[in-house]
């Protein structure tokens, strides 16, 4: 078949598909659902961002307002922890950096990226912020999934959901009988006369189906994405385009290939629905089940014991611990303090290090399991098309399986920075937290771990797979019998 002939067939098939009521219905539904998914995703992402920002903003406001404030409100915490029962309120003195960092929760926001509207459903599983105190590892605030039945039982629509569940169904509805119906009716032979070969017809129908799906999804997704986010990077947009193009090509090829190789439309539909259930529903469920089974979460009793031991560091202070810590950091020796506040700060600063170690140790086993799970999940995410797509988008948005752990790691690094900052002031026997200290208070600066390479690579892989499927199915179709089926006879 000449190139001109092939392009003519492609044009004809495309026109036919775009003008058919089914084609129009699929196109309209896909465009509407894509717009809805990205806009809803964008709105959901904004609520998460504002939640994190509110907590972090309130922390900064508190730090700024604390400059020069009396310490009674915070210092009572010290007495509550250190000298029960019937402790007296702390003496009215000025707040110090140590008071702010130890007796008060500071919140850091997890932050988001311009790509989060595409995968906003992931945000329900992630904390929007974490509480930091210098004597314990960061504590994530409860995620939306832990507070809202709607987010978990019903789910949250976003582009990844659409691509995983609805796009394949739309492709099946569009093309399950693309070739099988002609075979069933006995009109395939007539169609093959002008087309020249089965491959040309097959290719033309794949291109027609691909074009309709592409026009239904990609422009709507890109427009809605651009409107619902800010700071969109060109390379991210190109990666998403590549991912969508590759995925659509793959799905269109597979659907038309099954239709071309089936004798009847019903067989084609049953095969495709079964395949969709296995590839797009069963495999992702099995993967998450496998991760759970391979690395079960540890018994929480060890953590509870560890947390109680950590609490004991302040409630039953040990002179051995104090001596050991003072030996490690002699500048913090309480005897070098100049007044009650600075002596108390040095005392608790030394204890806080031991308390941090115990609290960290209490969480160690659980953190290790979660890390192992994230590693295995990242491998298993390559086992099915929907998980590949959601992983690629998650990598782009920074909401992947490692994000929770990485956020808490970054939070811990920030905690260490705050501890260094506070230590310098404790060593200098700070009497009052002033404006210059407020200005120099460390800020969380998370490294940018987002990557558009996964989306690009996944898109290319899907495209290559789609082409391979098309070539093999086209060749196979040529060998298949064109005789009318039993029904035609």
């Amino acid at each position: 078949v000449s190139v001109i002939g092939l392009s003519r067939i492609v044009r004809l098939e495309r026109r036919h598909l775009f003008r058919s009521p089914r084609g129009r219905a699929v196109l309209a539904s896909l465009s509407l659902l894509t717009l809805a998914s990205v806009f809803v995703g964008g709105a959901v992402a904004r609520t998460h961002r504002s939640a994190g920002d509110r907590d972090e903003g309130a922390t900064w406001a508190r730090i700024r307002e604390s400059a020069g404030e009396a310490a009674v409100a915070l210092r009572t915490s010290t007495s509550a922890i250190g000298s029960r029962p019937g402790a007296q309120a702390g003496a009215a003195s000025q707040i110090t950096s140590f008071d702010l960092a130890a007796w008060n929760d500071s919140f850091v926001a997890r932050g988001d990226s311009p790509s989060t509207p595409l995968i906003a459903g992931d945000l329900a599983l992630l904390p929007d912020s974490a509480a930091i105190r210098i004597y314990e590892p960061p504590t994530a605030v409860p995620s939306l999934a832990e507070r809202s039945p709607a987010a978990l039982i019903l789910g949250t629509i976003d582009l990844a959901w659409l691509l995983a569940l609805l796009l394949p169904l739309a492709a099946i509805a569009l093309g399950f009988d693309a070739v099988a119906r002609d075979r069933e009716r006995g009109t395939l032979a007539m169609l093959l006369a002008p087309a020249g070969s089965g491959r040309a017809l097959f290719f033309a129908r794949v291109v027609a189906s691909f074009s309709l799906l592409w026009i239904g999804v990609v422009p709507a997704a890109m427009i809605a994405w651009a409107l619902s986010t800010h700071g969109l990077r060109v390379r991210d947009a190109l990666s998403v385009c590549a991912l969508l193009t590759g995925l659509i090509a793959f799905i269109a090829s597979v659907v038309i290939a099954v239709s071309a190789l089936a004798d009847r439309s019903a067989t084609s539909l049953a095969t495709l629905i079964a395949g969709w259930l296995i590839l797009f529903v069963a495999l992702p469920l099995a993967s998450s089940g496998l991760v759970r089974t391979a690395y079960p979460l540890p018994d929480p009793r060890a953590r509870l014991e560890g947390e109680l031991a950590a609490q004991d560091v302040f409630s039953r202070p040990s002179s051995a611990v104090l001596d050991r810590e003072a030996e490690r950091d002699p500048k913090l020796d309480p005897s070098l303090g100049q007044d009650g506040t600075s002596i108390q700060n040095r005392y608790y600063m030394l204890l806080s290090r031991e308390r941090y170690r115990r609290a960290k140790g209490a969480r160690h086993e659980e953190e290790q399991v979660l890390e192992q799970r994230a590693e295995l999940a990242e491998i298993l995410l390559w086992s099915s098309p929907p998980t590949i797509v959601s992983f690629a988008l998650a990598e782009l948005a920074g909401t992947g399986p490692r994000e929770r752990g990485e956020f808490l790691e970054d939070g811990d690094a920030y905690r260490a920075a705050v501890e260094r900052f506070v230590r310098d002031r404790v060593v200098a026997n700070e009497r009052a937290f002033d404006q210059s200290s407020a200005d120099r208070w460390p800020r969380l600066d998370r490294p940018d771990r987002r990557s558009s390479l996964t989306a690009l690579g996944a898109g290319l892989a899907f495209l290559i797979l789609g082409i391979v499927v098309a070539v093999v199915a086209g060749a196979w179709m040529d060998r298949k019998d064109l005789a009318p089926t039993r029904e035609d006879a």
Partner: protein
Amino acid sequence: LNALVAKELRLAWRARRVWLASLAMGVLSLAAAASGASQFLDRREAYERLASYGETSFQKQKAAHPHQIAHNGYVVARPPAPLGFLDGGVETAYGTYVRLDAHKTRSLQGSRTAELARGPGAGRFDLGLLLAVFAPAVLILLGYDLLAGEKARGTLDMMRVAGVEARSLIVSKLIGLCARAVIAVDAPIAVAVAIACAVAGELPLVRLGLWIGVHAVALVAWALIVLLVSAIARTPRGALMIGLAIWGLLALAVPPISGGLAAALRPLPPMGEEMVQAEKWAASAHAQNEVLRAEAIRDVQKRHPEWNGAGDPPEVLDAVMLRLADAEVARKVGRVLDAMEREEDRQARLATEASMISPSGLASLASSAIAGSDVSHMRAAWRAYEAYRVTLMAWFNDWWAKNGSGGFDQYQTEKSFAAFQDAPRLEQPAFGIGFALARAGLPLILLVATSLLVATALMLSARRAIGKGVRA
């Protein structure tokens, strides 16, 4: 009508498609039952371990000052939902234990959000999910051609000539579809439910009956939708296409759109500042001032009118002050929690209303509520633990107020912990059927309303179809 019903029942029994679907559903429902039951058993085992740990660690601790004991805390664990093996609901996302520690209000720990995944059910696969989301697709495959097939074959005209009324036709087709559903969906699910109950070792009959009832109502709604589609479509192929599209929309698109809209339009307030506030209040429980002291004296005088405020008080004032301060902290925290829960309820209500047209979304919400695995049950359990914390705290403060420190000091002592053995133990809150029904009420009402709406539309379209005959 009898003849039509008999014909439909005969066809249902003889259809190969029905038995193939039954086989497929059998495999799926067994997998779902196994998955749900094994998760439930894990949860129950973890609960029993933690409950026993909490009790043992409380009783075996070293004796100390009564208020110190209260600060050491008491670990309580949340038992799994009564029908958690059938519908996991939000079990995985919600915490499972908490150390109740003096004045501090802590949220439940041990939530397993890391186990959640994308997609319907957030990664869980149990009978609740299978019935709500995937069984409707089977119903479509079973019944898409019930009316459209008559149209395509031209037998609808014959029926009209024979004087068959639309109502009789619809009733017979509905009974026929229900018979197919019984063979292909209900029977395998019933076997799977029985196996899940046996594996989990639980048989709460009333709750189980209600849970089955919720899904039955949802399946009837779906059956009516399938018949409506079959009545509207001109050909069986068209009916299948429209049916699958509607299933995709109602089961896979509308619920997450509702969830997303609810999250976007009624966002939950961030928790950070509330956590800070609660910590400050908790810390302030130990603060003492003259106003509090005066209040404590008045409180003691209420119980001991003979004491005129001079000399040694009959109760330890420090303890009374702590009790009063702690009660005030609990009230303040309670108000914050009430406000936050109101916001969560508003979001849930919006999500429920938005998923009104989706029997799957409504069935999921009602099913988890009846199973006791929805967020209301989890939240109520946690509030009961919080109330117990206040009771325990008050008990220790009372002990201290009445007996003094009793020789116990802040650090460990040689005295025995036996003096505190009478401290109240947690009684797990029992949530009856009434509580579950109150939570499942709105989704259930909407589900019935949807069914009635679809039934009306079906009757109208069937009358029209029979009246017009077939253009083909």
